[in-house]
């Protein structure tokens, strides 16, 4: 048997071509024949339990599930006989009788529920079996989403997603038979889960209203929302997003299955934090008068800034930008750069070392899929690049990949690691253990982040590279993956923007009397700049600070002028992810209030 060899079969009388190894469902789908499904979800292992996709294969007395039955050369398949339609109808009737599926009060009513759509498709308006009316829990203790067992059809799509995509296995099925029920951890409420990462992938996978996003519930059917495909700018991974909007507000945000980077998966930050967390927006330009920031018009604000710049001493002005600004903003910066003596971006701790020689890790996500050994050095994907963390978990749990972690802070990934150690000077004994663990590894990959950029870290990095090169006997060490912390820092650095960790050091050499900060949509409004008291004191000494930001923060307290900038879902343009892919940003909403996109503001101010 050669997988991939072309096969021919007849489905519903239509000659179809497929490849050996494909299921009947896949071949049918590729040939434009739709078979109803419920528990099937692309990219997950087949479950085969719902029995909606049953088909007849000539010569087989039993009906078989198309989702998990391999298509065979020369076979004849029927997908829509009267018998099959009757069986599917019965399956739906049984599902409706099992739990409390009251559509009118379900957030997925009117088009978002696979079960309801299937029932419409089969013309089911009543069922022959009395309802069981079980009394089941509605668990809304979770921060972002709820679990209503009454609407669950036990398709296990959430369980498989949690296990096979996010890799945490928070969800499973408890009990047996008709008492089967989705459980969280050891049967706790969602809010009390110690393993859930709130990635929300289970909600995206749920075919009914059993798992629902709290912020999206009852804001109208998604099927009637506008959809915009854009890119998440929370971290340098650059996952694809589909933003659902209605009346110029976000109804929900899901991963984009078409994204080559993330294939539809997201982490909590991209899925929820950007739009569910309350963040006070700056909606109008403001200038400081008599010690108070007062709203004003764009014209007045721009005029004020221009006046302040011309008043500033040449050689004493600087611009500091967030590393999340777009490539388009970077080009604007390059154009206006001559007006400033210093242009820097405020990167994360130790990240500047990664930016001094910016290297993109081409096809890094694919390398993570191919590797059979992973070494994570000075990076915290669980906190910072959630989708990468998911890949690491799945690699260890599903493919038995060896994992060595060297980090100064602990994370949930340590539980999956063969070795986990702090970044300190390590002894021979330790290296022997690393050698043992990676003994049979053929395709190791080294993933390192900003925290590796210390003297000890760099020594370890060198040593690891040597160990790995000598270890993967007969194999090939995959190119290392550099995992920065900030969204667009590598592209900005490559474009000549200087990475800055401590402003007072950066500007300390010579006095500055004008500072323009583009905080863009930094979730904290750029307040992290003021984390150190001496930096705050430093900023307070500067005559004039202009802040261009989306969210209110302590930074605006020191500003003479505040300009409102657009947030992620209001931006157009592109960012370059850590693999070096330029990924598009498409505005899903018109900017709130009088906010404008960063590059437009800059072009107006510096025109």
């Amino acid at each position, binding site marked *: 048997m050669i997988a991939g060899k072309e096969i021919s079969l007849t489905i519903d009388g239509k000659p179809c071509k497929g490849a050996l190894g494909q299921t009947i469902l896949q071949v049918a789908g590729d040939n434009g024949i739709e078979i109803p499904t419920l528990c099937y979800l692309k990219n997950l292992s*087949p*479950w*085969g*339990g*719902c*029995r909606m996709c*049953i088909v007849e294969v000539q010569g087989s*007395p*039993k*009906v078989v*599930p198309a989702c*998990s*039955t*391999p298509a065979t050369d020369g076979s004849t398949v029927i997908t829509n006989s009267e018998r099959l339609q*009757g*069986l599917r109808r*019965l*399956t739906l009737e*049984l*599902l409706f*009788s*099992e739990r409390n599926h009251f559509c009118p009060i379900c957030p997925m009513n009117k088009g978002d529920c696979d079960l309801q759509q299937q029932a419409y498709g089969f013309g089911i308006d009543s069922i*022959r*079996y*009395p*309802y*069981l*009316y079980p009394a089941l829990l509605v668990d809304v203790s979770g921060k972002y989403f709820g679990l209503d067992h009454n609407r669950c*059809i*036990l398709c296990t799509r959430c369980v498989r997603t949690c296990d096979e995509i996010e890799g945490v*296995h*928070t969800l*499973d*099925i*408890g*009990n*047996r*038979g*008709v*008492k*089967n029920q989705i*459980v969280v*951890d*050891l*049967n706790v409420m969602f809010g009390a889960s110690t*393993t859930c990462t709130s990635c929300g992938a289970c909600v995206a996978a749920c075919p009914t209203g059993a798992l629902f996003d709290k912020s999206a519930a009852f804001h109208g059917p998604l099927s009637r929302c506008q959809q915009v495909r854009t890119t998440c700018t929370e971290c340098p991974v650059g996952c694809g997003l589909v933003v659902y909007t209605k009346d110029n507000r976000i109804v929900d945000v899901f991963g984009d299955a078409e994204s080559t980077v993330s294939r539809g998966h997201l982490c909590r930050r991209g899925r929820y934090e950007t739009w569910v967390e309350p963040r006070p927006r700056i909606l109008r330009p403001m200038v400081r008068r008599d010690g108070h920031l007062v709203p004003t018009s764009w014209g007045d604000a721009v005029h004020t800034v221009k006046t302040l710049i011309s008043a500033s001493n040449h050689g004493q002005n600087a611009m500091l930008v967030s590393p999340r600004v777009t490539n388009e903003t970077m080009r604007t910066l390059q154009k206006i750069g001559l007006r400033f003596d210093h242009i820097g971006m405020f990167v994360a701790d130790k990240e500047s070392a990664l930016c001094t020689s910016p290297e993109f890790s081409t096809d890094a996500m694919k390398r993570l899929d191919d590797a059979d050994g992973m070494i994570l050095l000075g990076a915290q994907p669980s906190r910072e690049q959630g989708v990468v963390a998911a890949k690491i978990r799945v690699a260890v749990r599903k493919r*038995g990949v060896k994992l060595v972690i060297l980090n100064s802070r602990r994370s949930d990934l340590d539980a999956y690691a063969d070795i986990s150690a702090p970044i300190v000077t390590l002894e021979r004994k330790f290296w022997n253990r690393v050698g043992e663990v990676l003994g049979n590894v053929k395709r190791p990959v080294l993933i390192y982040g900003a925290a590796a950029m210390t003297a000890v870290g760099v020594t370890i990095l060198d040593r690891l590279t040597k160990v790995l090169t000598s270890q993967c006997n007969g194999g090939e060490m995959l190119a290392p993956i550099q995992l920065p912390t900030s969204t667009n820092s590598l592209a900005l650095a490559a474009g000549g923007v200087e990475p800055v960790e401590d402003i007072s050091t950066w500007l300390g050499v010579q006095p500055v009397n004008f500072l323009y900060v583009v905080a863009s949509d930094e979730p904290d409004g750029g307040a992290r700049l003021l984390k150190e008291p001496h930096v705050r004191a430093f900023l307070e000494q500067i005559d004039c600070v202009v802040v261009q930001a989306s969210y209110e923060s302590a930074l605006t307290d020191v500003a003479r002028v505040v300009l409102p900038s657009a947030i992620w879902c209001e931006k157009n343009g592109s960012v370059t992810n850590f693999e070096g892919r330029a990924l598009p940003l498409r505005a899903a909403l018109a900017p709130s209030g009088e906010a404008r996109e960063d590059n437009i503001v800059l072009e107006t101010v510096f025109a």
Partner: protein
Amino acid sequence: MALNVPTELEQHIDEVITHYPQQHKRAAVLWLLHLLQEHFGHLGKEQVEWTATKLGLQPINVWELITFYPMFTAKPRGKFHIKVCRTLSCELCGCGGILERLQRKLGVKPDENTSDGLFTISTVECLAACGTGPVMMVNDELFENLTPDKAEAIINRIKTTGKLEPQPLPPVLPAHPLEKRVLLANMSKPGYKGAIEDYIREGGYKALPKALGMKPEEIVAEVKNSGVRGRGGAGFPCGMKWSFLAKGAGQPIYLVCNADESEPGTFKDRQLLHYDPHQLIEGILVSCYAVGAHAAYIYIRGEMPYGAKILIRAIEEARARNFLGKNILRKGFDCEIFVHRGAGAYICGEETGLIESLEGKRAYPRIKPPFPAVVGLFGCPTVVNNVETLSNIPHIINNGAAWFRGMGVPGSTGTRLVCVSGPVKRPGYYEFEMGKLTMRQLIYDLCGGLQEGRQLKGVVPGGSSMPVLKADQIDVALDFESLRKAGTMAGSGGVIVLDDTVDIVQSTLNVAQFYAHESCGQCTPCREGTLWMEKMLHRVKHGHGRPEDVDLLWDVADNVDGKTICPLGEAVAWPVKAFVTKYRGEFEKACKKNGKEATDEHR
């Protein structure tokens, strides 16, 4: 909070873990849970987390098992856990009265603990001792042929003495002249205790050296020629099953003995396991050699703790004589046999459900293909055979395929163990040449006919999942083909006799309850359909049925039939369809009885 596991127990646990390949050590989880529950009385969060750490699992992987396998409990039970069988054969013999008496006596409802912490009563599904029903187990001890008075006396005795006395195994039933005992031959001999000395004295362990002198393919050919068919239920030819094994893939091959006897009405493997374990072990060793396996697992149902102990002892006896282990009989063949205990799930009788369970997971039957012969236990080629099938192998090797074929009829060669339960004079197990006796002879000659004053109403021929035969259909010969022609199947050999006092609606309800309880819940039609049938039968039985319910019941059954991943769908659909079709009048009468509207209680 750290769990205080005594060193001795932990050593035992560590030893059990070595029975499984290092990278599949989660397979030891059911054993661990049994051991921890024996010690701690229940499996709470600490036990779950301790087990998870021990086996490198996530706690949820352990928790999901505790809720799937009913033998495990997350909350403490009484010191003595009384498990009263409620399944068909025991119901026919009056188990209801026992449960009622015990509840009254102890003042608790099922699954409640008595205030002194001594007792918990539960109803359980078939304990595979149907011929001696009604039965109950108290902890690991089985009490048979109960009456309410006897059950009460047992409780009184435990209360007075504060302990549970070990129950001896009942004596082996004497052979009837119409029987031909091959598998039961040894144990029927006076003084035969099943120890290795007994087995060798009666000519045991001769097949093993003979087989080791043959080529494996010669043994496969011999077994093929013998025509022996699987005795577990489906009757698939054993030799053919062996020849499907995907060899030469560089993976180990496993043999799994299915000793999860749990089809209601079936208690034949119990005899083979308890009275003649070496016959089975020799069969397994020869079969392993034939198929190229170096490790075999005996999956024994959790409710047979004695059987597990007997097997473990027998394996050690065999090892001491080098019939098992390294370089067996200096012929260069290595083979290990391990005992694996189940924990109360009928679905583990299905071979892929069994494999999942053996791997330490919920016993969800797998989607086929791939078949176990290609991807089975631990992802390796695996053959799963029933206890009775494997027990036949030494006899085939000793006496030859021709001898085996000389017994029985073409297509159904050899002898068959059948076990009869229900209101007959001599219930029990019988061995005879297949096709040489009719159901009538079995009931009226071997079993001595029905109890005084009773008339035959029907008989279930092969475990409760097989379609019933009416009283006028019993002149059928007892072999695979004749029973198939009669519209039923030989199944697992569990014959359940129904007399004229039996309420067919109630019996159908009992059967439906069993399958609803045992459905794993994977497939919609089975998960919902089984419960549906149970609910509908419940309302028909209690006088709330509607005339259209009879057809609806048949319809639901028909829609489960053949529509599920595993044959549990058929196992419930066939008997329900047969009962409804053959005794339609009784269902119609029950539906008409008083025409009460269905109330919430009976929905």
